[in-house]
């Protein structure tokens, strides 16, 4: 039995460094071995592996992956392949012809259910990023639960120390107000 076979969605969501590392190290050689046929430099492939890993993690955290319909390595490989395609289209590189098709079965369906678009930040977002970083821990955590995890107010109530929905709502408004004010003050 492979290590990752007994890692559950719940384990991943807890986000402990040990689990993150286990999954990272377990899938790294598999991915690089699969991707070497695309004739890209190894450092690019490691970079793509990390991006694919992050995108996979996003989808675990934001609830798009509700249960594992494939192995973790299939998820990461499918996302990584999508990213390699993007890069190849951009570079028009020559590819090594030893491609194992079986790895990619069902990949269309898999990719379509995930959110992997990741545009660079716009100037406006960069400014927002700067100010978001200056917020207090409580605000950052609450906004993260809301916008990254996609939690509802009820979910937040269940998972945190807040004792009423109204407190959550008013804290959130206050955090956003602070952000807006800080942005206004820089302009």
């Amino acid at each position, binding site marked *: 039995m492979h290590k990752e076979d007994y890692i559950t969605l719940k384990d991943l969501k807890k986000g402990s*460094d040990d689990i*993150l*590392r286990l999954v*990272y*190290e377990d899938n*790294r050689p598999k991915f690089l071995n699969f991707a070497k*046929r*695309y004739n890209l430099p190894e450092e690019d492939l*490691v970079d793509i592996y*990390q991006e694919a*890993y*992050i995108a996979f*993690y*996003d989808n675990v*955290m934001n609830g798009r992956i509700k249960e594992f319909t494939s192995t973790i390595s299939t998820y990461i490989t*499918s996302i990584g*392949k*999508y990213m390699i*395609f993007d890069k*190849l*289209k951009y570079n028009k590189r*020559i*590819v*090594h*012809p*030893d*491609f194992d*098709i079986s790895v*990619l*079965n069902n*990949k*269309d369906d898999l*990719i*379509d259910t995930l959110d992997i678009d*990741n545009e660079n*930040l*716009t100037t*406006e*977002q960069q400014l*927002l*990023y700067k100010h*978001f*970083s200056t917020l207090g821990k409580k605000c*950052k955590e609450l*906004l*993260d639960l*809301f*916008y*990254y995890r*996609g*939690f*509802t*107010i009820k979910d937040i109530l269940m998972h945190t120390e807040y004792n009423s929905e109204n407190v959550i709502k008013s804290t959130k*408004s206050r955090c*956003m107000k602070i*952000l*807006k004010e800080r942005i206004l003050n820089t302009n």
Partner: protein
Amino acid sequence: MNKSELLYHYFSNSLTKDQELLFDKLLKEDEEFKKQFEFESNLKRVVKEKRHKELKSKLNQFETKAKIEKTDKKPSFSYLKIAASIIILITAGWFGYQNFFSINYENLYSENYNSYPNTVYSITRSDSTNSPEREAFVAYEAANYQLAIEKFDKAKSKDYFNFYKAQSYLNIKQYEKAKHLLETVIKTDEEFVAESHWYIALIYIKEENKTKAIEYLNQLVEKYKYKTEEAKLLIKALD
């Protein structure tokens, strides 16, 4: 329902159909609503970015740690391993000697032949139109080569079709048809000219035509940058 609640439901993916209609309407007509929506969308992106940066830095730490551990590992020798290596060398030498005077074409072919992956048509996203080209590459990736050929014939012809049709024929062992198509690729100077040299050489190896195989391999080495090392090794093995 007020506007901020509508936005709240949008971002927690819990809009009902009716709310969705109202949401779209407000987005078009209400400037203030639109502004707030954009602010929150940007915020969502920023929160994600923050997570990414933290995660990326963790992954880089794992990466560095793995490298350090790798270089720290000292090679360990034992007499048993050395003895085993000597036995392997002797055995390999004997088999090598047995095969020294004859070329095993079949082995050369199977050791060097690999089907070329689809690198031209991305089917990772769902297309609204299921075009014959898409169907052809779906079949190709699913290793259903006969169907791929049929679909390629139906699709509006593109530069790289000849090459992938040739690949499909190679996979179903129709070498003459494959060769003919690859020669066309070279003649018309389409994409995959270098690759076509390689595959034609392999077909000649399969047919045990040493002279022609070497001719194509030599051209590949001289003119292109594809599979140069492999081609040199094959020339050596054939000579």
